């Protein structure tokens, strides 16, 4: 047992004082014992099996293959931006952060250039989807390595839609049809479930493509001129007000990304835009989730794309990408790790654990044999090809990321649904956009 002497304490104190002086001088926390450790911050996955795989298998393999200890931390996705901000400002924190949407664009100046890894990945795996490129490339360099895209489709109850005439896997093709279907279903106590709350995934993934499908857009192609206040946008908002009242669970204004899962799984809503997590959960627990007739709920779920509007049919799938933080003292190890984790053999294990909830960032993953396993998941296979990204018709820049983070487009609909005249809601959102795109 070590004896603590006065001399030892004094020595420690001197070292601490010296250390503090060093920290203050460089404005950065020390990297003790970080030489062979990579700290990877991620969201808590909606597919728990994937988190288990990363912790239990991939981390061990990483240490074996690269000699790098992988420290995986998972937090609520809504808290990632706060963690990144505090990490950048304090100059210490995770070495690699997996961010959603185009959030990476907010931190372009504080991350390492990962062009070499991203370019190699794109070349070797069939090329990136445009969504992946738009959020991880600032036009000059790659500020992140695209990790995956979570496809968003409408999960719906096959039998309930059959009851109102949509048999043989048919689904409403236009917003008008969807509204009519929702109206009938709501009358039976089975409304459509959709969030218009301040939440990272389902709300923007619904609000943006809905706007595009009516012909509305945030800015012009120059990425500067705000173009939101148009007759198309006003029509979209007007329709939404009636659509919401007629067909939706009105509590959706306060839903987060998990409310619709709970509502669908408990038989409270008939359809909801979602990643495939609802279906995957029913596969995981077939005895828990049942239909009213007592059959497994998994057999009563189908997936469909968002309906068409006057401006076309669009989607927004949530891209994820890995930032290598500029302050990290483990740049080499982190780069080695990123190259390794994205390599086909390693990524394959994680991809399979997702069961189709995520598609790869590159087109090669569409060819994976996983897609032959379950026809219910097929609508997700090529979903990433059709996705636009936040900021359309301009690029998905920092300003577009700010608009997503401030929930301007989502709130435009929410305000109208709450009673603000649609024209005023659009004007409010336009003014907010102009503050961002100054």
């Amino acid at each position, binding site marked *: 047992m070590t004896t603590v002497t006065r001399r030892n304490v004094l020595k420690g104190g001197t070292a601490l004082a010296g250390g503090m002086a060093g920290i203050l001088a460089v404005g950065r926390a020390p990297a003790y014992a970080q030489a062979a450790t990579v700290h990877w911050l991620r969201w808590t996955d909606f597919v728990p099996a994937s988190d288990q795989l990363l912790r239990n298998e991939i981390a061990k393999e990483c240490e074996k293959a690269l000699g790098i200890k992988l420290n995986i931390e998972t937090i609520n996705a*809504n808290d990632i*931006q*706060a963690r*990144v*901000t*505090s990490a*950048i*400002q304090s100059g210490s924190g995770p070495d690699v952060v997996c961010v959603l949407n185009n959030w990476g664009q*907010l*931190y372009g*100046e*504080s991350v390492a250039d990962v062009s070499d890894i991203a370019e190699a990945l794109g070349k070797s795996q069939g090329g990136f989807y445009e969504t992946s490129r738009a959020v991880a490339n600032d036009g000059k360099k790659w500020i992140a390595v695209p990790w995956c895209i979570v496809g968003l489709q409408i999960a719906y109850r096959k039998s309930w839609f059959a009851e109102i005439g949509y048999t043989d896997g048919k689904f409403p093709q236009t917003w008008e049809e969807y509204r009519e279907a929702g109206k009938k279903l709501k009358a039976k106590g089975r409304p459509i479930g959709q969030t*218009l*709350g*301040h*939440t990272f995934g389902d709300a923007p993934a619904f609000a943006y493509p809905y706007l595009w499908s009516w012909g509305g857009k945030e800015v012009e192609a120059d990425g500067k001129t705000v173009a939101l206040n148009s007759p198309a946008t006003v029509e979209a908002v007007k329709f939404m007000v009636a659509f919401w009242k007629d067909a939706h*669970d*009105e*509590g*959706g*204004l*306060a*839903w*987060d990304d998990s*409310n619709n899962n*709970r*509502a669908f799984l*408990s038989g*409270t809503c008939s359809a909801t835009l979602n990643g495939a997590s609802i279906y995957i959960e029913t596969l995981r627990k077939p005895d828990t989730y049942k239909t009213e007739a007592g059959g497994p709920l998994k057999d009563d779920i189908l997936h469909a794309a968002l309906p068409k509007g006057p401006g076309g049919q669009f989607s927004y799938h949530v891209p994820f990408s890995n930032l290598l933080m*500029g302050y990290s003292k483990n740049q080499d190890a982190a780069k080695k790790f990123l190259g390794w984790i994205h390599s086909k053999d390693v990524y394959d294990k994680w991809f399979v654990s997702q069961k189709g909830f995520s598609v790869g960032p590159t087109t090669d993953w569409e060819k994976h044999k996983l897609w032959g396993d379950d026809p219910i998941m097929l609508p997700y296979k090529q979903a990433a090809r059709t996705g636009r990204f936040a900021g359309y018709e301009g690029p998905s820049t920092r300003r577009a990321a*700010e608009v997503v*983070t*401030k929930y301007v487009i989502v*709130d435009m609909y*929410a*305000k109208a649904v*709450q009673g603000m005249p649609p024209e005023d809601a659009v004007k*409010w959102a336009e*003014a907010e956009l102009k*503050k961002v795109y100054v």
Partner: protein
Amino acid sequence: MAISAVSDTTLREAPPPRRQRLLEDERWLAFVLLVPTIVLLGLFIAYPFMRGILLSVTSSRVGIPGDFVGLANFYKIFNDGIFRTAVYNTFLYTGVTTVFKLALGLWLAMLLNRNFRGKAFTRAFILLPFIIPTVLSTFAWKWMFDPTFSVLNWLLYHLGLITGRINWLGDPDLAMISIIIVNIWRGVPFFAISLLAGLQTISPELNEAAAIDGAKPWQRFWHITWPLLLPVTMVVMLFSVIQTFADFQIVYVMTGGGPANATHLFATYAYQIGVGTGLLSEGAAISLAMFPVLFLVVVIQLLYIRRVEVR
């Protein structure tokens, strides 16, 4: 002469070392004893405060120091509709909750000041909302107000008090009422226990004498209890107003400032803009906008307490 001078010098005690002399000086000793506190206050209060002021007059974003922009951020936030909503909400939230917390806390304190069986247990039980970590208890409330699976709605429905669902957190007004209810629930024990401590310092003889003189309970409260309780009440209110004005956890967990920014307070909006979106200077400006109000509240209340004490 020479001999006596030598003996005088040798007999006189040698002067203490300079360091010892300094410590014997009360002013110096007081300063030395205050140094740790000054250092702590400087590090954890003055430095962040000054840093906040410096940030608020720059165009800093996360990872980018930015340039000096004067009061541009303040001009921007005062022209921001969401900020104005946050200001209104903060005053409403603080005002309504403080009134209810004081009224309910005082009522509880008066009840707990009586003798009854199980008094100690009841007092401990009353403290529960204050003891449980705010985030945890607020999550429980969030489930109770859940838009789809609200236990509260279920209860009201089965009691026959409602026929349809109440959209607690989806309606802007109801969402505000919900967070106010949670704040009151959490804050009442603090008022009750603090006021109870104040009540116990009031001599029962005063009330007994007044009762003998024919004073009714209400008169006894108004002319004896209330004036003597006032200094404690003011201190409790001071703490409560400051805490409530800068509240973050309840709103962040319950509504995240939604629906559509309807329940943002200063702190939650500053967090969303400064930390979430990375617009540090704007976030700092929003936070600092709280300062003059809080400063004024503190000054007025401290002056009042001083006056009451002098009297």
